[in-house]
């Protein structure tokens, strides 16, 4: 166990935000989850008692007859904003006094950093380079993520759960986004904490050995199946991809129509909405982990090999 190595990675000034992220994201997920539970409890109460549903103000927040439903922004909101600004300022000042921004040697094209890492918020993409060729990891995937996010509100046809925390009314949307968010964070953590010189995998506490050599034999799917003819290999690769899309699509279909409410929402979803949803769900939420497992566990580099691009 090389504690010094762990300390060195964790205390890198540019890695401090990730350590912060590791604390702050769980906190806010818990904070949101707690409020969702409160709403869900209220929802079951109101569903059980239509009389109450007609009279209750339908929020977990307390309300008494005669209270104003609206408050003046000044002072009630502005004082909170002022306080928040004050806290952020103090936090930032303490951070800026305590930890210095890194400055390495002057840029030198002849002496490469090893490992040369992207800034942490892009390390996820850099980690994807292990699993996909650069045209996919560095270009197609970011474009897919952004278009997927842009499409998100238009493919969620669930009319419930607008403007309050809830889990039971929005299972599919929350799981879908949650898995993507989690994957992104996980890739950042892997790329930052588990990748050392040569972008090799180092467990926490393993010394970053610059002389380490790993003998990895990377095979392609066709090679594993003993196919030599490139044409046949291409056809088999395409078929494997098609099979994956079909199977994953089926599995996702099953997942999003399990509960009665989900089926009701499914019925309101137009074919175009559903197709777009499936495309992003299969490609990003199922495809990335599948390729990661193929690569890390089965040492398979490419499923489909063509003269122009490989997947």
């Amino acid at each position, binding site marked *: 166990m090389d504690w010094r190595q762990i300390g060195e990675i964790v205390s890198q000034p540019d890695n401090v935000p990730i350590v912060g992220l590791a604390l702050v994201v769980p906190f806010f997920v818990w904070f949101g989850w707690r409020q969702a539970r409160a709403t869900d409890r209220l929802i079951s109460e109101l569903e059980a008692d239509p009389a109450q549903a007609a009279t209750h103000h339908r*929020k977990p927040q307390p309300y008494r007859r005669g209270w104003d439903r609206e408050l003046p*922004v000044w002072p009630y909101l502005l004082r909170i904003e002022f306080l928040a600004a004050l806290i*952020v300022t103090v936090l*930032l000042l303490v951070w800026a006094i305590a930890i210095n921004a890194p400055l390495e040697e002057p840029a030198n*094209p002849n002496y490469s950093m090893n490992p040369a890492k992207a800034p942490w918020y892009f390390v996820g993409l850099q980690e994807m380079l292990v699993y996909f060729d650069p045209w996919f990891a560095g*270009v197609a995937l970011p474009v897919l993520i952004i278009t997927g996010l842009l499409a998100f*509100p238009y493919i969620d046809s*669930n009319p419930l759960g607008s403007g309050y925390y809830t889990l039971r009314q929005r299972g599919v949307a929350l799981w879908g986004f949650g898995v993507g968010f989690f994957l992104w964070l996980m890739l950042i953590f892997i790329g930052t904490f588990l990748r050392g010189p040569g972008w090799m995998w180092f467990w926490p506490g393993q010394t970053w050995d610059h002389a380490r050599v790993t003998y990895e034999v990377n095979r392609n799917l066709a090679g594993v199946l003993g196919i030599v003819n490139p044409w046949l290999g291409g056809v088999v690769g395409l078929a494997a991809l098609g099979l994956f899309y079909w199977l994953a699509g089926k599995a996702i279909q099953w997942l999003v129509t399990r509960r009665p409410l989900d089926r009701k929402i499914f019925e309101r979803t137009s074919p175009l909405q559903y197709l777009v949803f499936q495309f992003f769900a299969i490609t990003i939420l199922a495809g990335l982990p599948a390729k990661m497992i193929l690569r890390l566990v089965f040492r398979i580099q490419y499923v489909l090999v063509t003269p122009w691009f490989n997947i």
Partner: protein
Amino acid sequence: MPGLRDGIRSGINGLRAILKTPQKTQIWKSIFRVKHERKDPRTRALGTVGNVFLHLHPGKINRDAVRYSYTWGMGGISFYLFTILTLTGALLMFYYHPTKVQAYRDILYLEHDVPFGRLLRNAHRWAGHLMVITVWLHMLRVVLTGAYKKPREFNWCVGVLLLVFTLLLSFTGYLLPDDQLGFWAVTVGTNMACATPLVGHEGPFGPQLGMTQANDVRFAMLGGTIVDSAALLRAYIWHCVAIPLIAVVFMGVHFWRVRKDGGISGPAPVVLESEIKPEPER
């Protein structure tokens, strides 16, 4: 001792009156259009609506939305960090030249000679990192509360673009110290652009379309085939001028849409499953 108490009270009242005298002058009245007083709801609302900086806000707001727990304040904090970054960034610009000869030395100068220069640089850098985090948390909050749903779909899209600009701002800034860290991070990052399909010289169908090192998309980004002086200047202009300008415009639209879409989305009354309207409105 009623005498003493009355004395103190009249003293305080007198002090109040003195403190308020500037407010009675013509100059004061010409600057502040309305009185910021706690008198009645209308005066309070006017205090917000009649002020150019505060009128981003409505005069009144859903009483439960005032709580921290609904929005986590993350959108507002992101915006606040953006203003801090603009301020500290402008100060940094006084000391920084985007040239290969000067850039690195300017950072050293900032760190060792400029009064509070190191603090300034640190604050700018950490505010940038923090803003990436707060924007992600803001997005998470919007998802958890379903705030992207009708009629706020478009504002979600504006938000996604703001997220992209935030990341691009951080990334272009990374190169500016012209040190090994930034140089190699940007080299790694822009090397991926070589592999862009169609317009990268190593990407699918790129070579077939006549892409080479000296005319593909990475060349356009760097102004050369390696990260050098042209790239430094380009990063500087994107970082200090172009992206902030674009981002400010989008933030304006974002805030305006928050208001036009009916203010903050909640906490809204819950809708029950039995109340779903049968026909989807398309």
